[in-house]
C-alpha cells in the first residue's frame, strides 16, 4: 500500500485512454505525454498500458511495502526520505516506510509514476484514466490521505534511460506541427498562424490550452453547429486567440476549427510550460504519420541501462551512488548537501 501525503495541484491515474465512449459524451482522457508514460512503465518492467500516476508535481507519498518504482518526465530530481535524490527517467527500490517526493517540474509539466507490478485499482468505463471535467471518474483522482494498494510482485532490477530522445523530441523544441482542415485552409490563415509566435497561457488543463498571440480575427461571426473535435483540435473562437484541445476536451465543439495537432506532437505540447512560446508549422497527413512511426522507432530504441544503487556511510554521512554495469557512475547524492555530481554516461 502507499499513502498519499500530498497530491499536489493535480495527480490522477492515467492509462492510454478510454475508447468507444464518445457516443455517450465521454472523451478519451489518458496520459497527456504518452512517451513519458510508456517509459515509466518500461523502467518499472510493466506492460505499456499499465496505469501510472500522472502528476503536476508537489507529490509526496509513503510506501508501506518494499517496491520498485519509476518516475519519467522532464529532467529533474526526485527524493527519498528527504535525503537521497535521483534523476527522473530511472527506477529505484523503496523499502517499507520510505517517503517519496516528486518536485514541481522545472523543465515541463508532467511526471509519471509507475510501480512495478502495478496499482490495484478498478477500471471505470473500460479505462483507468481520470476524466477531469466530469465527476464520473472521481475514484481515479488522487487526493491527499488516499491509501492505494499496489501489487508488489514486480521486478527487482533498476534501470535508467538515456535522455537524448526526450531532450530532442519533447523538451527542447518550440515548433509544433499542424494539419490544417481542408475547408478552412488558406494562405491567409497559414501566414497568420505560422508567422506569429504564441504564448502558452495559464488557462491550461487536461481539457485544453488557450494560447495568446496577435489575435487572428478572421472568424468574428460564428454560428457553427456543434461537431467533431478531438485531442489536438485547434479552435479559433471569435476573439482570435486559438485553443488547442487536449485529451479531456468535450466530445463536440462549436468554434471554428483551423486544424489538428497530430498525435506525435501531443506529448511535446502537453509538456510546454505556461508562458513558453510555440510556433506552428504545417505538415501533411502523410508526413505526420511517417514522423510518428519514426518517433515510435526512436522510442523503442532508447538505451536503457541496468544499474545498482549503493548507499555508503562515510564519516557518519550517508552517500547514495548510482553505478552502471560498466562501473561508470550516474549520480552521487549526499544527505546533507543535496548536491548531485553527474557523469555523462551517454
Amino acid at each position, binding site marked *: 500500500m502507499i499513502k498519499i501525503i500530498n497530491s499536489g495541484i493535480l495527480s490522477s491515474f492515467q492509462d492510454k485512454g478510454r*475508447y468507444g465512449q464518445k457516443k455517450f459524451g465521454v472523451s478519451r482522457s489518458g496520459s497527456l505525454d504518452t512517451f513519458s508514460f510508456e517509459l515509466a512503465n518500461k523502467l518499472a518492467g510493466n506492460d505499456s498500458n499499465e496505469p501510472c500516476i500522472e502528476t503536476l508535481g508537489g507529490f509526496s507519498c509513503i510506501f508501506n511495502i518494499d517496491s520498485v518504482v519509476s518516475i519519467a518526465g522532464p529532467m529533474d530530481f526526485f527524493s527519498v526520505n528527504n535525503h537521497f535524490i535521483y534523476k527522473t527517467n530511472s527506477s529505484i527500490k523503496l523499502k517499507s516506510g520510505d517517503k517519496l517526493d516528486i518536485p514541481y517540474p522545472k523543465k515541463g509539466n508532467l511526471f509519471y509514476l509507475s510501480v512495478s507490478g502495478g496499482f490495484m485499482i478498478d477500471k471505470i468505463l473500460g479505462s483507468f484514466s481520470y476524466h477531469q471535467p466530469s465527476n464520473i471518474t472521481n475514484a481515479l483522482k488522487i487526493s491527499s490521505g488516499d491509501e492505494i494498494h499496489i501489487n508488489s510482485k514486480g521486478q527487482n532490477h533498476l534501470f535508467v534511460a538515456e535522455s537524448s530522445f526526450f531532450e530532442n523530441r519533447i523538451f527542447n523544441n518550440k515548433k509544433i506541427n499542424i*494539419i490544417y482542415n481542408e475547408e478552412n485552409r488558406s494562405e491567409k490563415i497559414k501566414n497568420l498562424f505560422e508567422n506569429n509566435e504564441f504564448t502558452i497561457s495559464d488557462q491550461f488543463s487536461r481539457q485544453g490550452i488557450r494560447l495568446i498571440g496577435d489575435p487572428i480575427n478572421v472568424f468574428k461571426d460564428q454560428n457553427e453547429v456543434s461537431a467533431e473535435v*478531438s485531442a489536438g483540435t485547434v479552435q479559433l473562437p471569435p476573439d482570435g486567440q486559438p485553443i488547442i484541445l487536449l485529451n479531456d476536451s468535450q466530445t463536440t465543439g462549436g468554434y471554428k*476549427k483551423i486544424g489538428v495537432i497530430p498525435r506525435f506532437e501531443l506529448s511535446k505540447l502537453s509538456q510546454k510550460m505556461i508562458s513558453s512560446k510555440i510556433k506552428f508549422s504545417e505538415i501533411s497527413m502523410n508526413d505526420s504519420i511517417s514522423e510518428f512511426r519514426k518517433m515510435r522507432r526512436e522510442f523503442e530504441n532508447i538505451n536503457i541501462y541496468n544499474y545498482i544503487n549503493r548507499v555508503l556511510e562515510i564519516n557518519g554521512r550517508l552517500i547514495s551512488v548510482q553505478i552502471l554495469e560498466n562501473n561508470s557512475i550516474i549520480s552521487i547524492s549526499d544527505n546533507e548537501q543535496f548536491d548531485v555530481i553527474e557523469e555523462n554516461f551517454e
Partner: protein
Amino acid sequence: MKNIFHINFHGDSTLVVNLGEDIDIKTNQMLHEIVHLLEIDFKHSNYIEDIYPTFNSIIIDYDNLLIDFENLKLLINEKLLSFIKKYNVGSEEERIIEVPVMYGGENGPDLSMMSEKLNISEEKIIEIHASNLYRIFMIGFMPGFPYLGGLNTKISFPRLSTPRISVPAGSVGIAGMQTGIYPFESPGGWNIIGKTEIKLFDINLNPPALLEAGTNLRFVRI
C-alpha cells in the same frame, strides 16, 4: 441514388462523414442507422477507436499506425454506398423516453424572468415546453448531455449574458433554439426552467447514458 455523403479528414486520426449542412430529422435518422451498422461491422476491428454521431456527420477516430486515411475512406465509402442502396426512410422504430420535470420556483430559477420578458405566463411556457416531442440529435459536450431539436420558437430565449458558476445536476434549460438537461453539476449559461431527479449518466449501467442519440424525448411535468 446520388452521393449524399462526403468523407473528409480532421487531423491525422479522425475521419468525418458529412451527410449535409442542415440539421434535419431525416438525415439524422439515416445517420444513426449508419452508425449502428458501422459499430457492428467494426466491433472486432483493432484500428477503430470511436464511432459517434453529431447532428449531420459521423466521426470515426482510428489508430493511424494501423490504418491510413485513404484505405479507411475507401472502406467506409463502400459500406455507405451499399447501405444507402438498401435504406428505406423511416424504417427505424421510434423510441421515446419520458423525463419527469419539476418546473419553476427553486427548480427553475429563470422561469419567472423568461415569463416577464417573453410576456408569456409561466404556466404557458411550461405547457409549451412539455408538449413537444424532442429529437435527441446527439450526445456531447459532457457525459450524457443531449442536444435536443424541436423547441417551440415561442419560448426560445438567449443564453444568460454571464454564465452561472454552478448549475445543479438535472437542471433543464433553454438557450436560443435549444433545450437540454445538465447531467452533472457544471458551470452554464442556459436559462434554467426546471429540474429532473432522473439520473442521466451512471457508470454502473450499460450503456452508461440514459439518453441515446437518434431517439426521442418528452418532458413530463410533475
